């Protein structure tokens, strides 16, 4: 399986996701944002970090780069796209995903391991998980407070486009375990064709027992299927 990771000035989880992809046997290439063509890939990853310092709005400036035109083309032709953290923010800025990520409700950066629940295990990204499986994944962001309009909110529910929700160890979803104020505890969503996934938690940080746990591995394994 071929993958590529788009690198913007200020991306800082690019090496982490590349390491994870290689460990999971993807053939990965890094793509500098000034390039005008993408290598042939089955999966395009937009990594986490602070592209352009998160200045203006997180993801806004990266969303305007030329390489994004190519990503949009690839997305429209069905290529799998994964945006993690800042990558998720970039996807919403370009309109590949609807909704937006506002400041965390307490206005503080949050880094911790949180529980999230697999809400749909019938996608290319999640087939190796059980439905309603509870994962423990690290989050690290300033702006992870997912927000969208009522129409899109309904669509997310109706078309089963919510990928993950914040929950407790047992899988209960409540405001108490909502780390950032996200609407309906949403931690990640798909587009309606389900070839694009944007998520705030960092699966690439959870593939190594020594460092954390291995709850992120099945996301990559699903993609390899």
């Amino acid at each position: 399986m071929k993958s590529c990771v788009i690198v913007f000035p200020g991306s800082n989880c690019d090496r982490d996701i590349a390491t994870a992809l290689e460990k999971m046997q993807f053939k990965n290439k890094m793509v500098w944002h000034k390039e005008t063509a993408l290598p042939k890939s089955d999966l395009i990853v937009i990594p986490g970090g602070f592209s352009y310092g998160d200045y203006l709005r997180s993801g806004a400036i990266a969303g305007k780069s030329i390489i994004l035109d190519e990503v949009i083309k690839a997305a429209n032709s069905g290529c799998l796209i994964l945006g993690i953290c800042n990558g998720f923010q970039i996807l919403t800025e370009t309109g590949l995903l609807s909704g937006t990520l506002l400041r965390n409700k307490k206005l503080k950066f949050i880094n911790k391991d949180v529980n999230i629940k697999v809400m749909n295990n019938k996608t290319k990204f999640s087939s190796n998980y059980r439905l309603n499986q509870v994962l423990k994944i690290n989050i690290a962001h300033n702006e992870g407070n997912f927000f969208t309009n009522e129409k899109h909110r309904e669509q997310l529910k109706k078309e089963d486009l919510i990928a993950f929700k914040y929950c407790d160890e047992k899988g209960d979803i409540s405001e108490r375990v909502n780390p950032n104020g996200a609407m309906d505890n949403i931690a990640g969503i798909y587009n309606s064709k389900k070839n694009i996934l944007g998520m705030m938690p960092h699966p690439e940080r959870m593939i190594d027992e020594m460092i954390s746990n291995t709850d992120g591995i099945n996301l990559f394994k699903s993609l390899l299927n």
Partner: protein
Amino acid sequence: MKITEKIIEKHGLKKEEYENIKKLLNRNPNLLELGIFSAMWNEHCSYKSSKIHLKKLPTKGKQVIQGPGENAGVIDIGDDDAIVFKIESHNHPSYIEPYQGASTGVGGILRDVFTMGARPIALLNSIHFGSPSHPKTKSLLNGVVSGIGGYGNCIGIPTVAGETKFNETYNENILVNAMAVGHAKKNKIFYSKAKGLNKSVVYVGSKTGRDGIHGASMASAEFDENSEEKKPTVQVGDPFTEKLLLEACLELMKDDSIISIQDMGAAGLTSSSVEMASKGSLGIELELDKVPCREENMTPYEMMLSESQERMLMILEDGKEKHAKQIFEKWDLDFVIIGKTTNTKKLTLKYKNKIEGEIPIDALAANAPIYDRKWSKKKNEKNTIDFKKLKKIKIEDALIKILSSPNHSNKSWITDQYDQMVMCDTAQRSGSDAAIIRIHNKDKAIAVSVDSSANYCKSHPLTGGKQIVCENWRNLITVGAKPLAITNCLNFGNPENEDVMGEFAECLEGIKKACEFLNYPIVSGNVSFYNGTNKKNIFPTPVIGGVGLIKKIFKPIGHSLKKDKSFLILIGKTFGHLGQSCFLQENYSITEGKPPEVNLTNEKNNGEAVLKLINENLIDSAHDVSNGGLLVALSEMTISSNLGVKIEKPKKLNNTIEYFFGEDQGRYILEIGERNFKKVEKILKTGNIFYEKIGVTQQEFFEVEGELKIAKNDLFKINNQWYNNY
């Protein structure tokens, strides 16, 4: 422009120093030259009050590749790997503007590390605030923590450890010390020494603005009344640009283009160019018209003294300029050749085709003043505490008081604001005695910790100096790392005060003794004097940052309890020393008394024994016993895990308070599975190590037989409420 006495004074120069400048120049300096002297001769750059004491510190060892004197220290961790690290203070700027002060502090120390060719892999910090009830403390704490996080998170380097303390001695002068640790290839270290004539001197990074030109602004307001008043401007950190600078530098460092490289820190362009030239016994000529400026009409004076962040100076090999420029342009950074090396041994500054200033390099560096300041020995405090007169207190109440106090509350309110996981090599995050960072793509790791004990140092500087080195050493040992070397940040009051200078000299003596005994050399550091107000100096607060090596990491060992029904043993003798203890401070507000003795022989033997046990995989968790004593250490082990403990009543000491809260040094608590206990005993007996079995782990409860029994979850709550309610 006439140099008046006022102007000299505003530049922080003493009369004698000015006379000395005239002698070295054989003439009067002009304003630009005066500014340069004042920058190079101030305490921060010249170390004029501390140099003769620092010279005594042990800085050598088999593991040391580069000791003090470069941008950062470098140690050998085997194979072709080296670790580059240093700590630095940003106290005064952080008090004025906590967010920007702290964040530029982090930015500055990172540049020190990556100028040497290392990729930064971890950040640490030691932050000290005034009393929590002081009106400024809360916003300072908030600003500093978000500033540290703001920079580290954005640039993408994990902030993995630190310490946070409150004490009214810092009411008017907080401490913000930041430490950075980087990884480099042993044969790819870059130094600041200039070499070769007529080589290009290159400016890279951000543009120069009027940031932090204090002397300048004050001086100009004085003698240039018609001009618009120039307020000293605060430096604003730009972690995004630093990330670009980091990547661009590391990219250029892949080949041999760079002869010498130096970040522009304090005194910016001045100190970086002088340092390069001085180390290489060369001269440097700069054409200031070429300096990239952010504001209009900047004068040579402002350009030379600006402390704008995210800038570097490099000397390049002939013919490499184009290649280097391409790299910096790829990263959207300025790259300008602003001068060349010369054989004049002078700093020559040209502007608009005129020489605006010319100073012999030696006058600025080698001939800078050095003072052997008067100092007086600390008088021994008599142990005046009459315990019989103290109101009786229950162990449980005393423990709760300590665990819920600002100084001992759980710090996750802080550490959750730092990205600790980015780079995916953090094997142990904040919360244990030391953080563990794996070397990327290898199975070895380093452990890092920063420590200080201002109360001990205030009461008995010599013992305090020894103690912090030992505590730092212990913190690395408990996670299974062999301590290799340290960096230190010496935060003290006014060195012109004999008592302060005495504290400095004696603390350093203590640090020296401990480092020598433990073979734990100092490879880098920083001195920050003049902390405090006119009349009140802060407590002496040396901060030690240590790095240790875990040769092969299987599973990170921390202080959270692992298994039910394990044995708990205490290594080291308990005498029940309560002087300077947090038991007395938190419960009785007593701050008198002597700190516990430090016995270096015991420290070394106990530490090495614990390390051996961990290396042989006989230990499930480990924690050193320090501030707060045995019961606090046991609480911390409980709170960070899913298990409780059941502790036996002490057999020998009849005063349980002394036993449970005494702060005797050189002690560790170890969790050992029953099946390993025999092996452990054997090793300890052969090593002649004092140990006692103190209890076992259990489910649910934190218990001391016949004294107290608290549900584990309640203990957690007690320890976790303060920050959330503050």
